[in-house]
């Protein structure tokens, strides 16, 4: 078994896993866009109205990006966008932690608010995002994967 083949299969798993993660993250937020906006506002990183707009667009973008990854269209580009998004989330969570904000990261939920008796889970959120970032980086480095539209197109033009 050649190294390229192993990479292609690992990349396929990475693509499907990362894509599913984005699909799930978007699907969990899309039902309540106002809540998604409040979750972004809770980070206190931008004015409320900007946060509300970002929070409304975010689940749709996450689902679109998840679909691109699962289908394997423009894999390297999609993986770059995914890495940038995850890096932005990491910066957001890290800065919330550093500023002593007590918020739910709103990563895989609508998030935002924590009631008095709940603790934020910054460490596990950050570790999960670092793992996702590693997966995305692998795809940026090795975007040739099996069962992807990219692969079909490549075969068609060869």
């Amino acid at each position, binding site marked *: 078994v050649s190294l390229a083949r192993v990479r292609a299969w690992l990349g396929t798993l990475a693509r499907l896993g990362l894509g599913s993660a984005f699909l799930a993250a978007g699907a969990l937020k899309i039902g309540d866009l*106002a809540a998604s906006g*409040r979750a972004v*506002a809770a980070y206190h990183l931008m004015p*409320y109205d900007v946060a509300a707009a970002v929070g*409304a667009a975010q689940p*749709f*973008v996450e689902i679109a990006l998840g679909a691109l990854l699962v289908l394997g269209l423009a894999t390297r*580009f999609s993986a770059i966008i995914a890495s940038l998004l995850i890096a932005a989330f990491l910066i957001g969570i890290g800065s919330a932690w550093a500023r002593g904000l007590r918020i739910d990261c709103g990563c895989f939920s609508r998030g935002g608010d924590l*009631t008095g008796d709940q603790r934020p889970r910054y460490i596990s959120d950050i570790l999960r995002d670092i793992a996702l970032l590693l997966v995305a980086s692998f795809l940026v480095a090795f975007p040739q994967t099996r069962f992807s539209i990219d692969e079909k197109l490549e075969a068609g*033009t060869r």
Partner: protein
Amino acid sequence: MSQRSALDKRRKRTLWTVIIAVVVLVVAAIVGFSVYNSQRSKPVATPKGTVSDGGTDSGLAVAGNGPVRVEVYLDFLCPACKSFETNANATLDQFVSQNRITLIWHTLGFLDSRSTTNYSTRSAAAAGCASDFGQLKAYGNALFASQPPEGSAGLSADQLIDLGGPAGLNSPAFAACVRDQKYKPWVGRITNDAARRGVNATPTLFINGKETTVNTVDDLKAAINAAG
């Protein structure tokens, strides 16, 4: 096929797939923003008892007409709100009876993701119905007394209606208001207003428009006394 043209084809293909991906992502963002915008711009029915609270006008008058404005941001599903209510109720009543404070509630739908039926919004909307009939405080206290656990389905519409009985909310109009969730859009609006004001936890207390943290009833008394 020459090496050169194969490379060109490959570049072209990459360019086109990237263009398609960019279009997909941009369209998704625009769709999200327009859906949100259309939800936001709908006019909203407001319960009776809405008061001028120094900006958002999203609070409901609970009791009192005194000079110090005490605003509580709460969620009927939030356990910490229930304990605030339990601990502070008698003190706040006392200030009300001395005509020292105006007590205002912002009944938020913050914790909709922590019940299976959006109980936060449903209970807050029912509180809006109670405010229509001038029974917000009694009804709110009853909601806290019957607070369901987080993660559950919460009280049904029938249970929310029955809860009004002891507070004198027996009319079919109240029942219809609760059942139809007449004030659900209003709850969405005031919950956003809270986030706009920087409130991202419940309970949050504002005294004369200033966010104030109190840990004990004595803190609360001191803060109100200091405000006037």
